[in-house]
């Protein structure tokens, strides 16, 4: 039985070309979902195949790749994906946001500001922001084509009528380049402002749903809201218990049976960097010595 020799970053060149064409089209129409013929990958649909295909299509031998899930380099799926690329592309990997050239992420945008020349690749489960209001693809396609977004605002109106607030806390819809309404992937709404006028290129890959979309650098990205109920970021009540950061997204850790909790930076690289620079929170001991990477 013959085992195949894999091409650089697993995908064959023709497939990469097809994906790059979709990426270019997506960049040309910010926020528009470009259909592409997603390939079966060695990890299951729903586990990042879209992001992996996008990364595989743009990766070069001199890139430095960072992979995070829930903001951390050390979560199981991030490790698995990073190892995949280390094995099939032999690229250098890193946990440092600033040193990376390509960052593949699930559900978070890194805290450290991105710079020009970087690419942020998001893993997207459901690319269609209108999907839960309108399950039919034929209908949502038409709504985007005709910029018929009334239904989206109906949902926001209903939230305010029912809860007094817009009740979307993650995957909060945005309007890109004043034209297309887009789902930023299940990042917390806390991260939405980072997408606006970002110096890096942002690419979004949905493997199972077979869509790619993009936000070119320095594009206007506005979270949907009402004039009298403007978009507000969610703020935590306390700083990070390890590094003291007050402007980062925090994970809640349950520490004992009695329900004690503490809040810690979700972005592990950011937190460790701050601790290494001497910042301390209430609960920190010495900073971690081993930094996880593949």
């Amino acid at each position, binding site marked *: 039985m013959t085992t195949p020799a894999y091409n650089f970053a697993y995908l064959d060149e023709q497939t990469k070309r097809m994906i790059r064409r979709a990426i270019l089209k997506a960049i040309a129409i910010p926020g528009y979902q470009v259909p592409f013929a997603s390939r079966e990958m060695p990890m299951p649909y729903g586990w990042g195949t879209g992001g992996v295909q996008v990364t595989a299509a743009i990766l070069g031998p001199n890139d430095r790749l960072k992979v995070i899930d829930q903001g951390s380099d050390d979560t199981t799926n991030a490790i698995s994906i990073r190892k995949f690329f280390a094995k099939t592309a032999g690229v250098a990997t890193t946990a440092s946001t600033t040193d990376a050239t390509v960052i593949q992420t699930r559900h978070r945008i890194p805290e450290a500001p991105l710079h020009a020349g970087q690419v942020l690749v998001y893993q997207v489960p459901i690319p269609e922001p209108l999907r839960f209001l309108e399950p039919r693809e034929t209908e949502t396609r038409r709504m985007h084509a*005709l910029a*018929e977004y*009334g239904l989206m605002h109906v949902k926001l109106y209903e939230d305010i009528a029912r809860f007094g607030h817009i009740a979307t806390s993650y995957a909060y819809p945005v309007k890109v380049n004043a034209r297309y309404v887009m789902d930023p992937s299940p990042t917390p709404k806390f991260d939405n402002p980072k997408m606006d006028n970002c110096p890096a290129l942002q690419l979004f890959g949905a493997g199972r749903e077979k869509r790619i979309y993009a936000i070119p650098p320095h594009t206007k990205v506005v979270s949907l809201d009402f004039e009298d109920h403007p978009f507000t970021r969610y703020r935590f009540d306390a700083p990070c218990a390890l590094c003291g950061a007050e402007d980062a997204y925090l994970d809640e850790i349950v520490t004992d049976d009695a329900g004690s909790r503490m809040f810690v930076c979700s972005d592990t690289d950011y937190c460790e960097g701050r601790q290494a620079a001497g910042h301390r929170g209430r609960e920190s001991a010495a900073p971690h010595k081993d930094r996880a990477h593949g």
Partner: protein
Amino acid sequence: MAEMPNAGCNDAPLLAAEGLSKNYGRLTACRDVSFVLYPGEVLAIVGESGSGKTTLLQMLSAQLVPTSGRVSYRMRDGVLRDLNALGEAERRFLFRTDWGYVHQDPAQGLRMAVSAGANVGERLMAVGWNHYGRIREAASSWLERVEIDTARIDDAPRTYSGGMRQRLQIARNLVTEPRLVFMDEPTGGLDVSVQARLLDLMRSLVGELGLAAIVVTHDLAVARLLSHRVMVMKGGRVIETGLTDQVLDDPHEPYTQLLVSSILPP
């Protein structure tokens, strides 16, 4: 009795049907219908089931493509356009702004799981209204206008009675101040007393807003109350047409006479 619209203000027809026909295989649902509708004019299309009136309404509102014939509509810019030549975007835009469509079953014309306020506000949001308070205020004032208790603005139409749902559907359609409203048996399925109130409301709204309307109904009382002109249909054809009072007081065709004579006295 409905009053004549102010003839001087706008002489150009709003909607014109020419030779409209619809065949399904060997069955002819609608044959060679032609008429002209002016702004502010209400036309009733009257007939029993199977007369072709619903098919006609669907062709007039661009939901069904005619087998032959044409429907032309004068857009807001004054240009008369063939409905079937419109792009889908234009058609959908017409439907959301310049036209209203009131379904016989209000559930078809409403979002049943969404609040009344959102139902009325949706079209406003679709054309760019972006202030929650103002949208809610507009919705609230329309609810008042159609005699729905404004305290129920956050309730979903699922919790409304049939009459209330129909009034909500009307509010939802009128909020963008359309120039033409299509109505398909708007009082069908409602209790008689509820019908009467609804018809009164519709008549005053149509008068206040200067709406043109095409009302399909089997009920001559509805035609009498709402319309200036009536077209009687039987077997897919128009068999009699004229001013409502004249046709209903002095029907020429035997079939029309039959319809008129079978109205139960009030």
